[in-house]
């Protein structure tokens, strides 16, 4: 098993955001986590990656294991550098004062000497030719969509084999949104495992092998993409009828 989340309970101060959720991701899968605003999707990804903003979510119970290693006992930078997991965080969180190229380079910081960086740069620039055009530009000057591409490209440059994405299509024009999803599919076919959080449930469920539905901190449904697309409750709540 690649990722196992077991009875994960998470709190912000006294507010319980996750009430003991369990799910898993197998090697090579695309798994999606869908749910309304405030359901706890970002909290779940933050807890896995332990991105620590000032009011950090505190894991109050349960365990998260990646390839058998408990992530709660591993420093977050080593989860990336040793265990090959990367996150495209909500709100992009690119380094605005650094150029596009520096953002991408920074992500290769912790990679081994034998990593084929030239190949990975080419791959990112093939996926997002816009980034190649803007490589010497400060990334804060990119448009929102371009920044989103950079956030994805940057995560790929870590050399990850497992990628978590938190609403990667946010702010992208419809054309680009479909393009991004095609790209994700292609990356998956090349061997990258994906855990995708999306507002656009229909798009996500069409792409994913399996999905989980999160509602106010609890998993309320799960199944293959097709099953969830056909589930009347899911249809009603998340697919607009």
């Amino acid at each position: 098993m690649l990722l196992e989340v077991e009875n994960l309970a998470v709190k912000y101060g006294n507010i319980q955001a996750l009430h003991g959720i369990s799910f898993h991701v197998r090697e090579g899968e695309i798994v999606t986590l869908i749910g309304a605003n405030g359901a706890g999707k970002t909290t779940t990804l933050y807890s896995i990656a332990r991105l620590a903003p000032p009011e950090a979510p505190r894991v109050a119970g349960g365990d998260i294991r990646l390839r058998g290693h408990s992530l709660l006992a591993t420093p977050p930078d080593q989860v990336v550098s040793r265990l090959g997991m990367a996150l495209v965080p909500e709100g992009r969180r690119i380094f605005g004062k650094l150029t596009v190229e520096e953002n991408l380079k920074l992500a290769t910081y912790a990679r081994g000497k034998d990593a084929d960086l030239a190949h990975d740069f080419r791959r990112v620039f093939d996926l997002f030719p816009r980034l190649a055009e803007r490589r010497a530009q400060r990334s804060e000057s990119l448009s929102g969509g371009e920044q989103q591409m950079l956030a994805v490209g940057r995560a790929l440059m870590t050399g990850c084999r497992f990628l978590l994405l938190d609403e990667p299509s946010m702010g992208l024009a419809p054309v680009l949104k479909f393009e991004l999803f095609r790209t994700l599919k292609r990356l998956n076919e090349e061997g990258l495992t994906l855990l995708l959080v999306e507002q656009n449930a229909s798009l996500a469920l069409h792409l994913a092998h399996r999905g989980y539905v999160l509602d106010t901190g609890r998993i309320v449904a799960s199944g293959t993409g097709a099953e969830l697309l056909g589930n009347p409750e899911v249809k009603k709540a998340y697919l607009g009828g």
Partner: protein
Amino acid sequence: MLASLLQNLINALQWGSFYALIALGYTMVYGVLTLINFAHGDVFMVGAYIAFFVASFLLAAVGLPGWAALVLAIPLTMLLTSLVGVSLERIAYRPLRRKGVDRLYVVITALMCGLILEHANLATFGASRKAFPTLLDEQVYTVAGVSVTNLKLAVIATALLVFLVLQRIVTKTRIGMAMRAIACDRFAVPLMGISVDTVIVATFALGSGLAGLAGLLFAMSYPILEPYMGALIGWKAFIAAVVGGIGDIRGAFLGGFLLGAVEIMVVAFFPSTFRDLIAFSVLMLILVWKPTGLFGVARTTKI
């Protein structure tokens, strides 16, 4: 007239070099942690004492000639002083950071660390001053009525060299990029597989190492050491960093040289007791006019 102007300019550059080398430590730590490390002036003082012991040891115990002792004293002083800075980070600042306390407490802790360094020195070596040994035979070059010593030239050249090297480190190397990334969004840095603590340690090591270098050069130029020698010069370097735009390396140099220039010019025209009064007033006016400093951009605290 021109000769005296040039003479003053050289003195201004020498003092500006000291301020700039110390200001760098303030500005780099601030850039990475938004922490004003008020112990830094005393790290400079400790650097001067380390230089004293290293130099005395190399001259007396090892019996090296002055130039050889100097060549060895530079890296040794920098290394040992950087260990002092890194220790402060490990013992005091990191535990507080882990607890997520308000920045105010970290700043107060920094002030206390500075006082502890001063008084540890006082307790260990007493109030008597130490005379720094001569490492470099002084030579005075006089060109068209302007005289300059080899030591002054070395101080100025060192500061310029440090500026070039540091500029390169910050823009070109991975650790430099990581320092700038932390200044943008510290919490996203681990997502790149980079340990924030490692970058913070590197920042303290670099800043304190440069304070050690400044301590050595200062002790060679003004060879009387006492425990409080870092206090006023530390405050001045800090103000220079703020006036230049704290968080920006160019700002530390600009602010440092500006302060050096103002001070020397004041002394040229007023009684020397006016020096600090007028210098600080000028800097205050600059800050009122441009609160973010000359190189500073308003920092939005969005997390």
